[in-house]
């Protein structure tokens, strides 16, 4: 059936046919070998891909579907195996909860605040790194240092830097006469502070992705643009950006998905706040809200409902970006 299979199987069987006078056992062995051979060629692709799909089914697909099932039940953390049918109760409770809508808003604002500046800066930095320069790999590796830092370590450091009374950032602003800013309980200030952690960790990574895409842009495009009298800025605007469109879309999708899942930063930004995301829930993201409902308030069923809402949001995001990329491809 498979073409590789038949092509590869040909020599042994042809050989068998060319020399007909052989002892019967030899012949049988030959046949057996060629049959084993064919089976091997036919089945091995499935053997090679099966570990991935088995693990994915067990730890990805099944839990995702089971989450939907669990979201229709009353399940408590104290007895996670006892499930009591509840219909859509978890969902209606969710939509009545002010903190759910709050976390939705927080997730959205944090996504915008962290993704937009991060990708713009990454684009600019990639453009600079694309020049011929000394120490190019030093810059690239140094920009990856935040990527190698964990959410936990990074957030703990930034939580200190953003301290109201003794934090280094307020001290620095104080040198210019700015009053102490309350980074941990302010509304927008805390959101900005948390976004900077995300931006700090991921800008270098995205820079490298843009740089890779820029290096793949054919160079004659720039040369002909230069011949047409395009300035450096115009070359960037009319050659680089259009060539990078698929990559830009890719990074936007990945960063958006990442920011829908924000969890560690808001959890650890203020020690002692627990999972509430600040004194007034200013930075309680959907991920944190899920954790609070499931593992602090012990309502696993409601946590499952939140997970499914998150999933639907991601699906909508996926469809929107899919439509955008289709439109881009057409134009």
């Amino acid at each position: 059936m498979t073409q590789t299979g038949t092509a590869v199987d040909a020599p042994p069987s042809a050989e068998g046919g060319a020399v007909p006078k052989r002892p019967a056992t030899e012949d049988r062995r030959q046949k057996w070998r060629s049959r084993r051979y064919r089976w091997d060629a036919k089945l091995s692709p499935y053997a090679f891909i099966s570990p991935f799909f088995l693990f994915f089914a067990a730890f990805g697909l099944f839990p995702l579907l089971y989450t939907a099932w669990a979201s229709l039940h009353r399940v408590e953390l104290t007895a996670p195996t006892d499930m009591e049918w509840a219909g859509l109760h978890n969902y209606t409770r969710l939509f009545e909860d002010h903190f759910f809508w709050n976390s939705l808003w927080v997730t959205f604002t944090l996504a915008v605040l962290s993704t937009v500046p991060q990708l713009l800066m990454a684009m600019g930095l990639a453009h600079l790194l694309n020049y011929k320069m000394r120490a190019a790999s030093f810059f690239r590796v140094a920009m990856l240092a935040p990527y190698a830092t964990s959410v936990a370590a990074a957030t703990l450091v930034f939580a200190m830097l953003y301290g109201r009374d003794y934090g280094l950032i307020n001290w620095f602003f104080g040198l210019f006469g700015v009053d102490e800013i309350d980074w941990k309980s302010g509304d927008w200030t805390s959101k900005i502070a948390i976004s900077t952690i995300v931006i700090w960790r991921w800008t270098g990574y995205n820079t490298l992705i843009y740089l890779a895409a820029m290096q793949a842009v054919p160079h004659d495009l720039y040369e002909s643009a230069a011949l047409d009298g395009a300035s450096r800025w115009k070359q960037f605007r009319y050659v680089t950006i259009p060539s990078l469109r698929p990559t830009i879309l890719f990074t936007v999708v990945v960063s958006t998905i990442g920011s829908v899942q924000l969890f560690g930063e808001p959890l650890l930004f203020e020690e002692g706040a627990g999972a509430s995301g600040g004194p007034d829930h200013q930075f309680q993201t959907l991920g944190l809200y899920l954790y609070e409902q499931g593992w602090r308030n012990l309502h696993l069923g409601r946590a499952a409902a939140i997970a499914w809402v998150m999933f639907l949001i991601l699906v909508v995001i996926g469809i929107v970006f899919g439509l955008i990329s289709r439109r881009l491809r057409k134009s």
Partner: protein
Amino acid sequence: MATLTETAPETAAPARRRRRRAPKAGEAGGQQRAGKLTYAVLLLFTAISLFPLIWTAIAASRTNERLAETPPPLWFGGNLFANMETAWSDANMGLALFNTTLVAGAIAAGTVLFGTLAGFAFAKLRFRFKNLLMLLVIGTMMVPPQLSVVPLYMAIAKLEWIDQLQSVILPFIVSAFGVFFMRQYLIQALPTELIEAARVDGASSVRVIWHVVFPAARPAMAVLGMLTFVMAWNEFFWPIIALTQENPTVQVALTSLGRGYIPDQSVIMAGALLGTLPLLLLLLLFGKQIVGGIMHGAVKG
């Protein structure tokens, strides 16, 4: 601007124009050279990238009292090892580092092995539903693990795996990205004739994998291994649910440091530093390969 004036005269002789453009266009690739401003901006951003890490070390080397004074310390003090010792004993850091190495190592090994096998099949073999299955793999990259935590937690609770390392290894032991990454690499790096030749010589699939695929894939396997190790080391959401402070990974242990009655900031920073140093070391040793891996994966992605 300069480009504009230099290339504007359409009537200029081609030879002359070329010579004038030459110094700007640079050598073979024709890439432009970086100016002083470029270096300045890049140095500034490098400083911003590194500053929080350097400051972690500074804070870790001070006392908690000193950190509650203004101005904040900007240079190292002499308390680093005392703080590290406190973090080590308070947060179970020794066990945490051991556990994390084990977990990240197992996840990296699994992702590389299974990713190479599946990537090879998708890159070079023909089989039914191949394109459909590959689409499924790519689709699964979009599903974040947060969505499955509730049933996973229920499952490990039932299996009595809470606090057991397998509960944080198994869900991450394969990755769609790993399959995709290896597939993209092997399509180019492994000539199909090589496999066919081995098959003609009578090699079984296992032999082909061992003697042809693995050697060809080795550079990409190394890069994928490092990328996965970094990600697994830093994984936070699932371990904090599945593990407790009795048997933590580094990320779980770090959260316990901040939870004292009077949190000792210098000890917290010492713990953060301990948890980050192994990866910074990895970056220092293999930075170029890791950068290359990210960039390689990006273009193909």
